[in-house]
């Protein structure tokens, strides 16, 4: 990905946008078909291998989730849910968790460092770790609880969608390695078509509520799921039903920030106008460092004392 492919960058005014004239590149997507995932974790291994990640060895926490959570050195993770529905039917649901590569990324909106989070024309959201300061605002911005801040170097990390592989025409490592074909990769349109086929098959098999997870609240995502129960994504280890950038983050960036800019400008303007209008508030005896000698002011108040006299103050 060269910098020309960056179409959106964090902490950058819309008045000075990222390079946009080549923003006609095909949007890509990864489609994770939860219904054919067997939970082998090959995707986790492939991710660690390709990205050279060496997360700490953890303890067994009593379920198959291993490691237990996303980590600066674990960018994708199988989450296992044992779900019993109202008919006492047991289901073992396995969801590959990781960055969803939102079309409207909350991390990018919250990030205070120009260009530390970027979005490429193909839709991939990427952290530029060398610019990251480790403030953790991306954690607050993300509706999916994905970014993790490293204790080692105080920088944020998450799935890159293998942007380095994509740049040379390769599929992401997880998609490449998946033995069941549960992870597909291609253009977003292709992936939506593939999902429609899979959803129809699932419907035929009796999964009436099967569907594509491509949440509109974040403008759609470049990592999508086929879910057997798209009406209830929460049952897949808490996948949010209607993810949105938090109204608190929106209020902070879209209301408070412009209001504060106006308040600051008005304050400076008012102070300047006051000084120009009223002039310095001098002591009537023209406050003298050696003390007053009892003389009354000779100058009328409109006659402003030259500034230089007070420069030392």
């Amino acid at each position, binding site marked *: 990905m060269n910098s020309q492919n960056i179409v959106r960058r964090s902490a950058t005014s819309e008045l000075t946008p990222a390079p946009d004239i080549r923003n006609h590149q095909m949007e890509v997507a990864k489609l994770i078909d939860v219904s054919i995932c067997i939970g082998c974790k090959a995707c986790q291994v492939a991710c660690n291998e390709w990205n050279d990640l060496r997360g700490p060895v953890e303890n067994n926490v009593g379920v198959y989730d291993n490691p237990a959570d996303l980590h600066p050195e674990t960018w994708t993770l199988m989450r296992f849910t044992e779900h019993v529905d109202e008919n006492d039917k047991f289901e073992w649901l396995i969801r590959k968790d990781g960055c969803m590569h939102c079309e409207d990324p909350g991390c990018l909106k919250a990030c205070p*460092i120009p260009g530390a989070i970027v979005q490429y024309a193909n839709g991939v959201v990427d952290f530029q770790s060398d610019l990251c300061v*480790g403030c*953790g605002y991306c954690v*607050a911005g993300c509706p999916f609880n994905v970014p993790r801040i490293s204790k080692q170097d105080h920088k944020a990390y998450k799935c890159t969608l293998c942007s380095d592989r994509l740049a040379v025409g390769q599929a992401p490592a997880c998609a490449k390695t998946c033995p069941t074909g549960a992870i597909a990769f291609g253009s977003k349109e292709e992936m939506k078509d593939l999902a429609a086929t899979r959803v129809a098959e699932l419907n035929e098999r009796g999964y009436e509520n099967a569907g594509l997870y491509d949440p509109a609240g974040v403008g759609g995502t470049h990592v999508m799921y086929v879910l057997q129960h798209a009406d209830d994504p929460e049952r897949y280890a808490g996948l949010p039903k209607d993810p949105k950038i938090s109204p*608190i983050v929106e209020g902070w960036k879209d209301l408070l920030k412009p209001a504060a800019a106006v308040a600051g400008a008005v304050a400076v303007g008012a*102070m300047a106008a006051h000084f120009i209008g009223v002039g310095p508030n001098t*002591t*009537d005896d023209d406050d003298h460092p050696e003390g*007053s000698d009892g003389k009354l002011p000779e100058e009328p108040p409109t006659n402003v004392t030259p500034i230089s006299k007070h420069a030392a103050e």
Partner: protein
Amino acid sequence: MGKPKKDQILRTKFLERLCHWSIVVCFFFAATSGISWFFPTFSWMSSFLGTPQMARVLHPFFGIAVFLGLCYMFKRFMHHNLPARTDKIWFQNVVPVLAGDHSRKLRIGKYNAGQKVLFWLIMASIVVLLISGLIMWRAYFAEYFPIWVLRLAILAHSVAGIGLILLIMGHIYLAIWVRGSITGMVTGYVSKRWAAQHHDRWAEEIESGKADH
């Protein structure tokens, strides 16, 4: 520490002045780096602390230093900033005060009603900034809080930070506007005339030996 001068009153003692100017330095660094993250157009402001990464590391420590300095100020100045009956007179005359009209006796104590409001708003802001800042401090504490708390903390930190910066801008302007104030905070001394003009009741109490400094 200057010697007492003719017709001068000690308004601010050495340790208080030292504390004030230490806070000025620490607040400058904390506020400029904070602005650099709130308004990315001013991202260059983090450069006063070096790289953006270094600014992120140092910002909380400067903030805590400001808090500690303000704790001392609170202890020293709180009793001068309690509401007084005469504050009403100042509020009623705020327009002539801002016009630089010195003809009225407003019965102002060591601090006028506006300064008292400033004092309490600064103290309230720094408490909000401290608590929210500790919560969102990624290196040490943020991991112990759920994300919705972090979001509220970041919002509260921004509101209080912007509020405090606006208050301090006003404070700086008024110090520049009222001649003699900055000299007063540097040397500690103001002229008797200055005191009588801006803080008449305090000047009288000093004169009669009733007030502490």
